[in-house]
């Protein structure tokens, strides 16, 4: 179903189904992270990094590496978040590219500076901001919004683990309703922000959501975003086993369930002179079993969630997405 909407130059890969409950075959699987011609000599995420096992951020960094290939000169700005602990301590760096560790709210501003100097000097360098949900939804929001308004030539990737993971798991405005964190001991009582809606409302050239369970779709989007000019925003749901109280080995499966159930829509929104085009890249099956087990297999939802209410929210969201998609 999704193959019509995805233009990817990744080799054709076998379709692979892994939904243990529905058994519907709609999710492609990458044939491993083997080194190929045109790949970077070193991956962006090198050995020696400090990431926890099962961290969703590691997956997206590896795919970013594959998508960029060896031809693209990259610089990355990372504000305070787990991603800036990833490289280890001075003078070592587990990142295979130049990284600036910015202050918490400043990724998009520092990225703007790097991009402007690169432009002035024809450096042919793509600047990436790589930030968590705290640095994106919360403290970095004004900076991010302004950079998007100015349509800076930046690729902004938000890996959203729905928590202040680096500080030990406090709520952010990306924490979902009902999730227990160290500052919402009885479960969060309000919904998370819709960051994709917020960013696409800036009418930036490209906004997309990426699933770490859907490599073909995600790689295609990463390649597309890397090649485009102007402000591009990518939202990645990134499992955090310590914060989600989930099994490290189940992270990808959890994201798959969130996509299958419709909880996490996989879409892209493009803006050009003609106007907005919203594409639904992965059709959800609105799988109730996936939704139920998504919540059940995470300790952070131990105080229970109102599944019927969440289902109504998912339906409302999809109604408006389909209106915007024109189908």
């Amino acid at each position, binding site marked *: 179903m999704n193959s019509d909407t995805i233009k990817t130059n990744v080799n054709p890969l076998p379709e692979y189904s892994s939904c243990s409950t529905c058994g519907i075959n709609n999710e492609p699987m990458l044939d491993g992270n083997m080194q190929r011609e045109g790949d970077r000599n070193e991956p962006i995420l090198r050995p020696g990094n400090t990431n926890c096992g099962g961290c969703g951020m590691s997956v997206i960094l590896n795919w970013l590496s594959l998508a960029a290939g060896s031809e693209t000169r990259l610089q990355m700005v990372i504000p305070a978040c787990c991603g800036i602990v990833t490289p280890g301590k*001075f003078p070592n760096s587990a990142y295979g590219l*130049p990284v*600036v560790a910015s202050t918490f709210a400043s990724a998009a501003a520092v990225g*703007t500076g790097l991009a402007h100097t690169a432009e002035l000097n024809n450096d042919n360098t793509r600047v990436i901001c790589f930030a968590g949900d705290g640095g994106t939804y919360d403290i970095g929001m004004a900076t991010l919004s302004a950079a998007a308004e100015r349509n800076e030539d930046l690729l902004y990737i938000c890996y959203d683990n729905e928590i202040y993971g680096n500080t030990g798991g406090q709520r952010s405005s990306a924490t979902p309703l009902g999730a227990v964190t160290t500052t919402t001991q009885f479960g969060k009582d309000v919904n998370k922000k819709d960051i994709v809606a917020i960013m696409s409302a800036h009418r930036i050239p490209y906004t997309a959501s990426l699933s770490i369970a859907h490599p073909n779709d995600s790689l295609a989007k990463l390649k597309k975003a890397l090649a485009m000019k102007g402000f591009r925003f990518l939202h990645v749901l990134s499992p955090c086993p310590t914060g989600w109280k989930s099994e490290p080995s189940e992270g990808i499966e959890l994201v798959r369930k969130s996509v299958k159930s419709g909880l996490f829509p996989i879409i892209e929104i493009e803006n050009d002179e003609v106007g907005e085009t919203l594409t639904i890249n992965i059709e959800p099956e609105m799988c109730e079993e996936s939704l139920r087990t998504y919540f059940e297999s995470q300790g952070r939802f131990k105080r229970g969630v109102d599944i019927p209410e969440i289902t109504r929210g998912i339906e409302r969201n999809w109604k408006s997405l389909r209106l915007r998609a024109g189908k």
Partner: protein
Amino acid sequence: MSNLNPKANLQFISANHAAAMAATLAGRANRNARGFGGGIYPITPQTECIEYLSKQDIEKGSVVRVESEHSAMGVCIGMALSGARTFTASSSNGLSYMAENVFAAGFYRLPMVMMAVNRTMGPPWNIWVDHGDTLMLRDSGWIQMYCEDNQEVLDSILFAYRLAETANILLPAMVCQDAFVLSHTMMMTDIPSQEQVDEYLPDLNLPHRVADRAVTVGGLDFPHETEAHRHQHHDAMMRVFDVYKDCQVEFKKVFGREIPDPVVGYKTEDAEVLLVSMGTVASTARAAVDSLRDQGIKAGSVRLRLFRPFPHLLLEKMLASAERIAFIDRNVSPGMGGIMWSEGRVTAPKDALVQNYMIGLGGGDIRPEMLEKVFADLLSREQAGPPQIVEVGA
């Protein structure tokens, strides 16, 4: 002095415009290297500076209109890290909002220049001069200079780039001036030519600029690394005194004007009573000194131009013969007193009577007769008392 220069290009401008012209000239001078830029954001009384800058056509330049002072400094950090010459300007609450990134720019060792117009911190809101805003940033690892007139503002910005970008310094520099007294007051100012500025400011070549090398700039330090980094930072600060002199000599050679010393004395040679001040208060102090000299009192004035690094030895030399010393602070650290006094009093001779007066807080107009009263109080004292706030009214 500049009036005597036959080649002078005199213009009647405010210190805000003087600062913007200096930044523009310095920016253009880096056109053969990595270019120029920065983030800008308005705040009274600095706004005219960034307005002027945003109107300039700067070859290989890019001035970004951002949404906050925090991001203005963020853009400067990004551009400076990738090798460009950078500039921004701010005041009071803008500086406090920017503060986190001001420290970051210091710790990244980026030789950028910021013009700060000293304005009272709010609330309650007050747009007039007070030095408390930039003094709040004294520990941010930036060089700080406080100016007395518009020409000094313009010259100090060019001087600051030369000093900051020197290979064994690599520190950001803040050029401070008094709100309205300078920022909105027009004076005849000698504008140098682009050729002169090109000659004075070599291409910026930042050794640690972010390019292709896979390093993490500003990542994690453990205590031992932080000790080493702070040590290097402090050492670079302490080298400023020597490099300052070299930059003065070069400045005189290229522009024909003098850059004032870190500590500027007036009739100090035989002075028994001294007023120590910063910024434009020093001009008023000179008038008061003249008046006292007419009465046969051996008075003198000392202006602290360089606040970071703090010129302890130079100040000590200047105060050596004084019996009575007043530190005139245009700031208050509540619960302590004047910040300049608290830092500078250790440089006074052991037997001298040292009294702190905080005057002109919130921008009240300090007139010569008020400083004469301060002199009178200082002369009448049997011993120093606690720091004293002198109210000057409107």
